[in-house]
């Protein structure tokens, strides 16, 4: 049944990179943050996410990571660090998440893999698995109170907490403009709709991204 022209067509595989929230068309709806809405949110799409695992008791592991990245790996529970390449989040006693611009992820992964050769550890690119949303505005914390059980008064800059959001879980951090939500791509639709719904009483706007990472 197949002739040569048909099989040529099917062999042309052209993958398209889309953020998990692309059906909402956020890029077209974004506007400069102003006083008309209580809550402003947007997705920071298509970042690089690198998972790093290793034993915190192993000095060789810590030294290798620190010298490769030029940082001091956050080993305090629920702490995070901003650095030249992006940020590094403590997720668990033996797990960290590096968030960087997407084009840097291969370099960063290579850097870590080279430094950690022969050391019991794991570095892997999880960029397809996560996305981030920023949440700003005067009612941002009111909206989060509707969504999570975490005591937001205990959250401050430099801290990242894994907690619940409706029925799912995510990592929550506070930055200078508001909050940042890091979660699995498969939760994106649920979380975005939950945010929209929770923000109804306050007014919900799509914030313009200012080179946010």
């Amino acid at each position: 049944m197949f002739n040569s022209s048909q099989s040529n067509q099917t062999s042309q595989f052209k993958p398209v990179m889309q953020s998990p929230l692309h059906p909402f068309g956020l890029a077209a709806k974004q506007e400069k943050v102003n006083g008309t809405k209580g809550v402003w949110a947007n997705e920071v799409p298509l970042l690089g996410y690198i998972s790093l695992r290793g034993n915190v008791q192993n000095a060789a592991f810590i030294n290798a990571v620190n010298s490769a990245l030029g940082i001091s790996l956050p080993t305090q529970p629920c702490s995070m660090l901003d650095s030249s390449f992006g940020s590094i989040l403590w997720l668990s006693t033996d797990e960290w998440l590096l968030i960087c611009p997407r084009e840097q992820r291969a370099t960063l992964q290579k850097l870590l893999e080279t430094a950690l050769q022969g050391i019991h550890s794991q570095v892997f690119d999880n960029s397809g698995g996560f996305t981030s949303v920023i949440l700003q505005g005067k009612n941002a914390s009111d909206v989060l109170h509707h969504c999570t059980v975490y005591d937001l008064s205990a959250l401050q800059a430099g801290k990242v907490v894994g907690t619940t959001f409706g029925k799912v879980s995510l990592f929550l951090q506070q930055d200078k403009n508001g909050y940042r939500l890091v979660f699995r791509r498969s939760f994106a639709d649920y979380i975005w709709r939950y945010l929209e719904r929770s923000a109804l009483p306050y007014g919900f706007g799509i914030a313009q991204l200012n080179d946010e990472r």
Partner: protein
Amino acid sequence: MFVIRCPHCCEVREEEEFSYSGEAFVARPSAPEIESDENWGDYLFMKRNVKGWHWEMWGHSSGCRKFFVVKRNTANHSIGGAWSLTEARKEYDAEEANA
């Protein structure tokens, strides 16, 4: 609702973030393939079911995703403490030795 201190996150969090994982320190038979059905059944299903202080495992499923041990009073729901598995083992063994 409980508020439980996760020994790995070092923070007190709501029960909703955690998942219950049953009684702690139930010894698994070392050679399951030669264990009698009765002993294997006991291991799987026969729990202490105490009224009073109970050692149980919880997982911080929405947070650090680690398991740890909570000592909880099943009669009045008060929580006596939460430890990592290694630290709790020492407390548990000391308590068993005194009992």
